[in-house]
């Protein structure tokens, strides 16, 4: 068991290292650098910059050094949680993360709760009432939910909410609460804005969880212990909820580590569409402006989260379900 965890953790570390190289290289790929953009901006503002000045800026920020030196400096600073400076937002990357990451986590958390709240009961229903009208309806809805891209769903909901409820969507707060202190009305305002991103982000996850739950439960239902429970006179629902559902939930619990990073990655485009104060919009801008510290940090952060999440899932699965044996362990 420990050996297995150790090997997985090592592999995870190697993967994160590979991701850090890939994200650094990819972000360096565009021709030119941030200084070029900056110079262009200054020139457009009527403040021409000489080549010498640009070069001075470049060496000041270390942008004239070879790529591997830049990478080394970057990764060393990352390891000590020094994320560098965002050129285009003109604040430390850390500050942007502090401002936006809590919303990101909150959004993901609410979405996971939403997903489970709907997926588990529907999954149980679909399995117990297999091939009923309800089962077919949920299957079809589930397929549709999986297939429709998030950002299209966001657009459609945005239109519906505007056309039928007269509510402009976008952001997580109304204008009057945007910069206000935290208070109950502000929390209520947040909740009113939160439902669209939650539904948009949660639909695909709900759809696939329904399928998983349904299939897991269908595997359990024909087993003798269920029959025994029922023949002993336990009411149907109790017999189902008490034993097979608990077994069927196991693989579901383990997906939580995987769900969080997937949700954060998936929320990027939705956040841009809905104008949420999360990492998505800044990442898009940072990529377009070649703001490499900001973009690199976000890409690396998401990659690391995915790796750690998968690791947690794998380990949880073994811890929760003692029937799973690791090949080569012990």
């Amino acid at each position, binding site marked *: 068991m420990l050996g297995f965890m150790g090997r997985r953790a090592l592999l995870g570390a190697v993967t994160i290292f590979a991701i850090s190289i890939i994200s650094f290289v990819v972000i360096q790929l565009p021709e030119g650098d941030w200084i070029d953009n900056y110079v262009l901006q200054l020139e457009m503002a009527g403040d021409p910059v000489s080549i010498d000045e640009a070069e001075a800026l470049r060496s000041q920020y270390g942008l004239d050094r070879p790529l591997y030196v830049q990478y080394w400096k970057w990764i060393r600073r990352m390891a000590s949680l020094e994320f560098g400076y965002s050129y285009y937002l003109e604040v430390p990357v850390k500050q942007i993360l502090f401002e936006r990451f809590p919303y990101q986590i909150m959004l993901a958390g609410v979405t996971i709760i939403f997903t489970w709240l709907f997926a588990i009961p529907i999954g149980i229903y679909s399995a117990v009432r297999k091939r009923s009208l309800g089962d077919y309806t949920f299957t079809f809805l589930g*397929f549709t939910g999986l297939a429709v*891209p998030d950002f299209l769903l966001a657009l459609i909901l945005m239109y519906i909410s505007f056309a039928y409820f007269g509510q402009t969507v976008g952001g997580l707060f109304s204008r009057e609460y945007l910069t206000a202190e935290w208070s109950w009305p502000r929390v209520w305002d947040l909740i009113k804005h939160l439902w669209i991103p939650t539904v948009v982000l949660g639909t695909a996850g709900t759809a696939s969880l329904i399928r998983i739950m349904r299939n897991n439960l269908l595997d359990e239902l024909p087993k003798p212990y269920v029959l025994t429970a029922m023949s002993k006179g336990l009411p149907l629902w109790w017999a189902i909820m008490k034993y097979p559902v608990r077994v069927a939930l196991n693989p579901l619990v383990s997906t939580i580590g995987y769900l969080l990073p997937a949700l954060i*990655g998936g929320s990027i485009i939705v956040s841009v569409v809905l104008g949420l104060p999360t990492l998505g919009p800044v*990442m898009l801008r940072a990529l*377009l402006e070649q703001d490499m510290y900001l973009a690199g940090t976000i890409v690396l952060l998401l990659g690391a989260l995915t790796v750690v999440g998968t690791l947690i899932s794998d380990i949880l699965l073994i811890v929760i379900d003692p029937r799973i044996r690791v090949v080569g362990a012990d």
Partner: protein
Amino acid sequence: MASEGAMSVHQGAVSDESQEIFVASQWRLMWWRFKRHRLAVVSAIILIGFYMVAAFAEFLATADPAYHTEKFHYLRPQPIRFFDEGRFRPHVNGLKGFRDPDTFKKDYEVLPDEKIPVHFFVEGFEYRLLGLFPANRHLLGIAPDVPLEVRPSIYLLGSDDIGRDAWSRLMIATRISLSIGLIGVAMSFFLGIVLGGISGYYGGVWDLSIQRLIEILRSIPAIPLWMALAAAVPRDWSALRVYFAITVIVSVIGWTELARVVRGRFLSLREDDFVTAARLIGVPEMRIIFRHMLTSFTSHIIAAISLAIPGMIIAETALSFLGLGLRAPAVSWGVMLQQAQNAQTVALYPWLMFVAVPVIIAILAFNFMGDGLRDAADPYSS
């Protein structure tokens, strides 16, 4: 499989119907299986329709998709009226633009008396049919003798911010978006077959390193990687180069899934009797791989491919939508959706969102068809 069938026939007491099943070829069995999945069959027909649109996009376009005029911008979708005083005389009504005095929003007044005839197989802008034959006929269009200033198009789906005909643009966009899915999948397919094949057939160090590579690629979150790669495409590239760059980008991750499928199949077939037999009689290795092993799981590959296409279409649409993908003058579903990016436009000009409809239908159809194909690929399972 056929020999098994023949054996059973000798045991007698077999109905005609099951006899037909026993002697049916593998592909026939798969076809029967596929036909049973109604939704998959309907989806396949819809997809054939989509690709017909892609092939004959210009013929179906009612106006030059690039033609723009300030006079008809943000026009609502206009219906064609087929009958005029009880006679079959297709026409569209004339329009008069005005500014709403309160909101300053441009709006149009329908002139019921001004009737502009609509013709079938009408002459219009020049194009090359299937990219080969010069042609200028279009299925539907305004008669060529009506000057462009009076009415440049039918505007079945309205027009956009600079007055381009949304329907005609949608036709061209369908071609580009659907072909990106196909080319992207072809690229992933090539990489997946080669690397998955090496991994599964040779095993050992090859397998280990390729599997690690796949694992690393799969653990990078797809959307940020796509965005970062797409942002790296130089701004001054031509539309065609950007198109290919985006296709490569969307297949960067797609091939790993195909490689996984191919590897799994190779692993299970490697020790099979027919492969051993081929090896023993001295068939060259490449021939064993391509002639014997690959052909035996072609159906699984087809299913995996059709399930991989929608992901690529979504990726392209999302990237273009964000302004990282294809750029004007190229038109794709994502490029068209870009106009519906903010709440205000969506509220004021909801028809610009119509592009979402073909996107969703195409993606659903690919998923359902792929699902049916996956079931059919293994016709012996119950």
